[in-house]
């Protein structure tokens, strides 16, 4: 009963927050664009047409064409699939591993806690982009490696937040009760501790999607992420750099879309955080 009312309350607060609404509209548009890409894209994103290279935006090509005469609008539309996939899956991987590590460290304490959390602290000392870059250097290029590289820098954050909430949950009366009737540690963690400590992790996850998208696009920009000719926004900006004087739209347009999508996730994440934070009130 209580959880349902909390859910309704959160939804009500989210709906009244104009920023969060705008963010959710952007995200929904992005998801629709990604899903309907084959239907709404005006042409094949990889169709080369050397006769119409570097065209400025016009009615035939809304966002112009690139150095191979490919339609930039179509490439932007297909590129949304990659941004979305990398953003969500990187956060999912980081969240799962972080929650696993954080709950083990928090629930069991002692040497496991020390070992796991000091490892997390060490990871914190490396800038996300540099760490991701080094991981790509070791694993090699490709979509799966990009997801992993964008996910690993986010693990310490999830682990820390999970650990701190698990530490609180561990001492609650109902966990004590569960222990008293002989529930196993695993059952206690899954059934009582995690469900009650997941809210701040979810908020953090929502806020981390934008970071993951930025890290992944940075890697692609540097040439270590998604490889051409796959349409990826960061790689498109990079490819357009050489034509910045003649055709600045090659770089500017994909960047605007990265910014819009990151903005959307930031707005929605902020809204979710405000809605779930009881301190801020209604």
């Amino acid at each position: 009963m209580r959880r349902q009312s909390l859910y309704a309350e959160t939804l009500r607060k989210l709906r009244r927050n104009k920023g969060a609404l705008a963010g959710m509209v952007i995200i929904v548009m992005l998801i629709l664009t990604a899903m309907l890409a084959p239907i709404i894209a005006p042409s094949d994103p990889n169709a080369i047409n050397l006769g119409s290279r570097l065209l400025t935006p016009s009615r035939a090509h809304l966002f112009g064409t690139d150095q191979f005469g490919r339609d930039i609008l179509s490439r932007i539309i297909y590129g949304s699939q990659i941004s979305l996939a990398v953003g969500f899956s990187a956060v999912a991987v980081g969240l799962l591993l972080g929650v696993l590590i954080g709950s083990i460290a928090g629930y069991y304490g002692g040497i496991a806690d020390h070992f796991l959390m000091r490892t997390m602290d060490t990871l914190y000392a490396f800038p996300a982009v540099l760490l991701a870059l080094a991981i790509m250097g070791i694993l090699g290029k490709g979509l799966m490696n990009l997801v992993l590289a964008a996910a690993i820098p986010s693990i310490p954050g999830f682990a820390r937040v999970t650990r701190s909430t698990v530490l609180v949950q561990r001492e609650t009366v109902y966990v004590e009760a569960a222990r008293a009737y002989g529930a196993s540690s695993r059952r206690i963690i899954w059934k009582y501790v995690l469900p009650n400590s997941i809210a701040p992790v979810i908020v953090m996850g929502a806020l981390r999607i934008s970071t993951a998208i930025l890290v992944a696009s940075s890697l692609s920009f540097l040439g270590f992420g998604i490889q051409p000719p796959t349409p990826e926004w960061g790689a498109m900006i990079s490819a357009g750099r050489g034509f910045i004087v003649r055709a600045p739209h090659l770089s500017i347009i994909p960047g605007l879309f990265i910014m819009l999508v990151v903005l959307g996730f930031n707005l929605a994440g902020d809204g979710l955080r405000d809605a779930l934070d009881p301190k801020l009130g209604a």
Partner: protein
Amino acid sequence: MLGAGARAEDLQALRHNLGLDQPIYVQYGRFLSNILRGDLGESIVSKQSVLSALLQRLPVTLVLTVSSLIIAVLLALPLGMLSAIHRTSILDYGSMSFALLGVSAPVFWVGIVFIFIFSFKLSWFPGSGYASISGNGFAAFIRHLILPSFALGLGMAGFLARITRSTLLDVLGEDYVRTARAKGLRESLVVMRHGLRNALLPLVTVLGLQFAALMGGAVVTETVFALPGVGRFAVYGIESHDFPVVQGVVLVVAVVVVAVNVLVDIGYVALDPRVKYD
């Protein structure tokens, strides 16, 4: 390194020369003991000592990160304060929209847009390269630094402005601020002396934590603006599979990040007399 068609005995010899035929713990132990002696190995490609190559490039990266940090703080404090003082006004929405856009824009894209506008279109600043004070004079040094520092600092400025606003709002709701107002203190004094002073502490904490992000941003910024710093060195190292270089950069950057955070911890004592370390 030997190419796809290498002979088995050459591979074996190379593995032996690089110590790769030893167990991992032996390799790691040797790596650690070399670090303690200041030896980060040598670049596989250039045969140059990684440490000396890094020390040559580190000042560029530090200059870039520190200058963008300064720009970020100079932009963020006034923006955040304006927002907090004129809460829910057009000023608040304006500065927070700017801050949000700053946080959301990818740093490499901001850099390219800056190069396009301020270098190609307006010819105000050079769009790439680095000028050292000793070699090119102070004016050239600053002119080369402005675009990359603003590009890198903008995102941080947006982030800090948001934090400044929220911590200042918290502080301005405190009892002692009400007392200060009640005793008839001017609003500007209330905000500066009682508000900002107390909002600075969490801000400095965030600054320390975000320094790592700034170093990460420097990797990309250096590539965009062709600055010879450690970030670009790392990119080069990965491109050419020069692992000692990558290892060295990652290690040095981590050391810098940890050192900055230690400095931040020490800085608390200066900012807040209540904080004492035993």
